[in-house]
């Protein structure tokens, strides 16, 4: 990895290896390597001891990259760093690609005694529970048509904690009681994976089968040959991702690589959260790797799926028997095909098996398929350019001359980012808001 010279002008030091993290990543992009997941691993290796190798020094003295401005304030430098971080996240390639919208995910939580380690505060276990809750809320927000189940790995066995359900409240309830989940014994990847696999075996082909493992242990205590289980997962098209809390295990990485999932080792609490939340956007459908990407598999045809939009029965109507619980309930939804009364949508009709969704659910899933194009960083201010942001109507910041040419990391030196379609300029804050929350360009629509 050649150090990026342009950035060296920034720092007074003459350390040859003085490349800050952002630039390092920026350089990687030029080589065409994917970023994100791999980065932590390299950082991981880089955090060696004092008497390490010279390349490990890449990450020492990062504070030298932070420069004070004329007034002695660090604010500009900090803002610059923040902007870089944002842009890095937003620069992911965004074209319209096939993604699985109807998702099925099983979260395997390690409940072995190694989760009681305090290297993450307060403990790995408590942090995992907390993050899992946040994850589930966010996951259902982004994937309203999905379903989640939870399985724990405790005492050498897999333990069903929450059944597959599309209701976030229900699944949150299953992990609300901390005392019922107290870690104990050794984990068994094989048992838990088998369990997850069998709970997704009946799913139709249009839905994804995903497993997310939060793994704190460095061992797995399996009754048989785990390689058989990995093979079974591949043939069942189960995508396995692992977030390891301790260190990289070969079996975990192999598991992810072979099944098409992502693998990451959490460096600290924040990084753990980042890795976990990377599993929220729906996975892209890939050409089947085993067939070598032949012409047929590179663009397989797709089938239409029948969905029904239910009739809602208001809260104020008289109570009637529902199909799911056979209880008297006021509100509900009527299946358009068989007229059965269901308690909650989205769901598969208990009677006729029709998939029942409401249109907001579909709409909320759509932005994954039609993402907002990444805004381009403006390097100069055009003559006719407006003085205020196209999103928030606030004035653009006065361009700072001291700033480096950040084009490598996609940061605009003038703090303006333009939509390639409507050509409007937006500030850095709006850029992030549009891409991560709004999912629609305010200029285009």
């Amino acid at each position: 990895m050649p150090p990026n010279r342009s950035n060296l002008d920034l720092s007074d030091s003459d350390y040859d290896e003085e490349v800050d993290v952002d630039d390092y990543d920026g350089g990687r992009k030029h080589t065409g390597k994917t970023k994100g997941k791999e980065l932590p691993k390299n950082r991981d290796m880089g955090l060696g001891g004092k008497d390490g190798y010279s390349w490990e020094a890449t990450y020492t003295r990062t504070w030298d990259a932070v420069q004070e401005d004329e007034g002695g304030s660090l604010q500009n430098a900090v803002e610059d760093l923040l902007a870089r971080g944002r842009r890095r996240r937003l620069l992911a390639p965004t074209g319209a690609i096939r993604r699985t919208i109807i998702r099925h995910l099983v979260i395997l939580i390690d409940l072995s005694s190694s989760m009681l380690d305090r290297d993450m505060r307060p403990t790995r276990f408590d942090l995992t529970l907390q993050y899992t809750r946040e994850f589930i809320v966010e996951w259902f927000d982004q994937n309203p048509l999905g379903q989640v189940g939870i399985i724990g790995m405790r005492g050498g066995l897999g333990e069903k904690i929450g059944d597959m359900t599309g209701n976030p409240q229900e699944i949150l309830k299953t992990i609300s009681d901390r005392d019922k989940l107290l870690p104990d014994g050794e984990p068994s990847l094989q048992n838990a994976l088998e369990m997850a696999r069998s709970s997704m075996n009946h799913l139709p082909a249009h839905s994804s089968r995903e497993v997310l493992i939060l793994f704190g242990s460095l061992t797995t205590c399996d009754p048989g040959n785990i390689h058989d289980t990995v093979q079974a997962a591949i043939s069942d098209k189960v995508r396995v991702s692992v977030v390891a809390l301790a260190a990289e295990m070969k079996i975990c990485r192999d598991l992810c690589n072979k099944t098409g999932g992502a693998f990451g080792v959490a460096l600290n609490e924040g990084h753990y959260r980042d890795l976990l939340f990377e599993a929220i956007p729906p996975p892209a459908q890939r050409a089947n790797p085993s067939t070598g990407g032949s012409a047929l598999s590179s663009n397989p045809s797709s089938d239409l799926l029948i969905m029904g939009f239910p009739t809602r029965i208001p809260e104020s109507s008289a109570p009637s028997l529902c199909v799911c619980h056979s209880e008297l309930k006021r509100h509900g939804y009527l299946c358009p095909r068989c007229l059965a009364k269901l308690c909650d949508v989205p769901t598969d009709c208990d009677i006729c098996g029709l998939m029942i969704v409401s249109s907001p659910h579909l709409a909320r899933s759509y932005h994954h398929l039609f993402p907002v194009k990444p805004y381009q960083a403006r390097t100069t201010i055009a003559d006719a350019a407006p003085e205020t942001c196209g999103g928030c109507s606030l004035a653009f910041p006065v361009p700072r001359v001291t700033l480096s040419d950040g084009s490598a990391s996609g940061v605009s030196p003038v703090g303006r980012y333009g939509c390639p379609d409507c050509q409007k300029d937006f500030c850095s804050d709006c850029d992030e808001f549009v891409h991560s929350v709004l999912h629609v360009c305010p200029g285009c629509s």
Partner: protein
Amino acid sequence: MLNATVLSGSSHVEARAKTMYNKNPGVLTFTNTRIQWIRDGENRPTVNVAHSKITNLFCTKEGAPKQRLKLNALDQPEPYMFQLTSPTAIAVAELATFKRLILEVITQNQNLSKTAIRAAPTTPTVTSPSPTPAATPKVTPPTRASPAPAHSRASSAGPSKRQAYSFEIYQKVLTTMPELASLHRDLVEGGQITEAEFWEGREYLLAAEFAAANQRKGKPSEIVVPRLKTGEQGQILLTLTPQLLSDIFEEFPIVQQAYSENVPKPAKAEFWERYFSSKLFDRHRASTRNSVAKDDPIFDRYLEREDDEPEPLHPRDERVHLHLDLAATEEDHGEAIYQTGNEKDITMRAGKRKNAIPLIRRFNEHSERLLQSALGDTSEKHPREDLLPQASEDYSQIDLDDLHQRDTSTGISLQLQDTQSFLEGLGEGKGKRGTSSGSTVENLKKITQDMKAELKSWSEDLHEFNSGHSAGEAALQAMTSNVAARLETRLRRDVIPPSISQQMTTCATAANEFLRQFWTAIYPPINEAPAITNSTPAQKSARMTKMVTYLTRTHEKVDAIIDAAQEEGVDLHVMQAAFAPLVASVDRALETYKTRKR
């Protein structure tokens, strides 16, 4: 449990006794096929063990104050504990009878299993066209497969397609889901639908239960450490369980060797006592701590040299993967440091702390043994890359995965037919709404200009704004009445007597099941799971007709319940409203059936 009634009819009771089980009084019976325990006042047995499942029996000694019976059975982690509650004299006699009967069964079972194992290797000699059938059959060496491996797994997948699940799985699913069980009781045992039909579409429940029930614990990875306790007088106590002993034998074959070669001489207890104070035991401990171990003439013979030389005592006979081989770059770090300038890497300086080496090697050997027990024989099942022949493999071995460019393909591109018009269509919709009043572009421009002008002084306009009373009040009125309506329905508690609501639930679940059967016959679920039954179209239409006949009766049933409720004083409208969705969906199904028939 489900077939208990059937079984009890064809068996005869050989012994019977009053017992307590799980603190409940009941009767323990021994029949010619199974052992059952029926709680007082119930007619289904709570415990029901087939003779072939019984593995072990424990009884209280004669003269003990309480007569107890402990029964171990296959597939049952916990033993059954029964306490005989008859007066002591009778209880003793009863216990003796049970003991005799059960012991007979156990010996029978043991003999059966032995012959089963013995029969396996000898069968080939019977069927083979051997020219000398009288000759002593060749004793085939016991293959690896004959004794079941200790930690094997039934199969890595669920039961193969179309293979039925065992009865226990069905039973477990039903016991964990009482609602399903009652439905099953009503419909299947009532003969209205068949077992296979009932489970069709519910296979996933069975699959999940199967996966949960077939889990087995792996071998713990910890090295065997006997836990020593200090007794009251300061002596060291150690409880030797058969499990611990077999673990020790497995972990340290040398101890087994010593045991088999010596044991009658020093008695069993003395053998272990001496072992735990010997140097051999010290060597086997998972720490480098030195303790004062006595010389022992027996165990010192088995003592190997301390394994702390640079070369291990037991070298691994496999070739190490180049990437993992710490000595792979040995030649770069020649002795003459001044020539190459290369010091040995820290990972290459083996034996810096001499007393750590034996421990490290012990751990390595332990892990190797553990892996082998889990993976089976690695060389056969999974030829690891490092065991492949050398030659041109060297380069592929040092080819690091991380240095390869990742697959950069982002995925299959979404090819929506006419994407552009789809997205434009979205915009157009909005445009139409704006221009619905028939205004042209100029008009629109004018409107916006006017609006701009109007809005310039919006803050002053706002001061003069007066909404008028009537509009606000009307809005408030509407909102209040809405809330009031909700509150009213919520507050109104129409008390439906429990007996009626019970009937309602039963009627609804049964009708729903018929509806489910009806619709699955029309639209079979699209899943990839192996279905237990794959019914033919003819079967399906037959099932549909059957369900329709049941469904036509639903109206009568509902009416009957409504009548009954009215007698109890429940409002007619409440009942009709409660059944409205059900009746509507039944009607829809009947209607669909009619149109399909045509």
